[in-house]
């Protein structure tokens, strides 16, 4: 049985096909889920990809969290299913309350489009299980609102529970504690600003993102096997 990865598509999402390409390269089946759907069908994992969901009106991710599919994504997460938000997807997951904190405008008010160096901090998330703590990954970022912020108590909790998943080596956006990605307490919901799908082939300049998406597909496969 092929592992199925659902990829949520809101009006304004623009990274769904990149994610789908890598998912299929890694041997899984990509299933595009339109935001108006009320279920995530029979997928084993969900990716909320990058873009500008609903035009990012009001705040990034603010309208997207009310799309019908998000209720199903929330149920999938609550049942332990892997959910990964990339860039705009990370913003959607914080707005939906699936991850703590928020993403505000970058310090310096610049849209940053660059390949950055990341350090893997925790391997307890579904996205980093196959990576090594301390590994350096070169992965592109492409955002205006990637400056992670949360209150002190949340930050202390994230650190104590080893939920900061990846950090920037050289902070590009003012993010609190150099945070590039975090996970929930169970490790099955992950959000990160960098785009692993854009670092998935040597032709793209880096294939450092592959280990992350491989981890996700492995977690989805394990889950699929368990549920059978």
């Amino acid at each position, binding site marked *: 049985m092929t592992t199925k990865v659902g990829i949520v598509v809101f009006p304004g999402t623009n990274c769904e096909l990149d994610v789908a390409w890598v998912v299929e390269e890694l041997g899984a089946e990509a299933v595009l889920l339109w935001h108006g759907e009320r279920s995530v069908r029979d997928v084993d994992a969900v990716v909320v990809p990058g873009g500008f969901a609903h035009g990012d009106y*009001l705040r990034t991710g*603010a309208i997207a969290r009310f799309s019908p599919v998000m209720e199903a994504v929330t149920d999938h997460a609550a049942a332990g299913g892997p959910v990964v938000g990339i860039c705009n997807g990370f913003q959607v997951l914080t707005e939906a309350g699936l991850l703590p904190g928020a993403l*505000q*405008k*970058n310090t310096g*008010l610049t849209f940053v489009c660059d390949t950055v160096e990341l350090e893997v901090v925790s391997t307890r998330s579904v996205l980093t299980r196959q990576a090594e703590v301390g590994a350096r990954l070169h992965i592109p970022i492409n955002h205006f609102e990637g*400056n992670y*912020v949360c*209150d002190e108590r949340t930050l202390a909790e994230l650190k104590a529970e080893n939920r900061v998943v990846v950090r920037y080596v050289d902070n590009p956006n003012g993010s609190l504690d150099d945070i590039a990605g975090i996970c929930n307490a169970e490790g099955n919901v992950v959000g990160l600003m960098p785009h692993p799908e854009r670092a998935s082939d040597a032709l793209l300049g880096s294939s450092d993102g592959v280990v992350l998406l491989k981890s996700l597909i492995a977690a989805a496969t394990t889950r699929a096997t368990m549920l059978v």
Partner: protein
Amino acid sequence: MKFTVRIDVTHVPGVLDPQGATVERALPALGYSNVSAVSIAKTIRLELDADSPDAARTQVDDMCQRLLANPVIERYTVEISGAVSA
């Protein structure tokens, strides 16, 4: 009754306001060297049908908490002015 509502959404104190900070740096460049504490906020205006000012306020509070403001980084104030004649 129809009410007019003005909602100001501002940053939580302590949360970075990069737009305000940028404008604060730009104003002295024009000679306004006596400016400080610049912050940039969002104003949302709407009209609302409700039975009473209290009912209108309760509903607007709910809208702010669920959608119009993000409590992690934003605060809001609500101003409701008297019934507009329909």
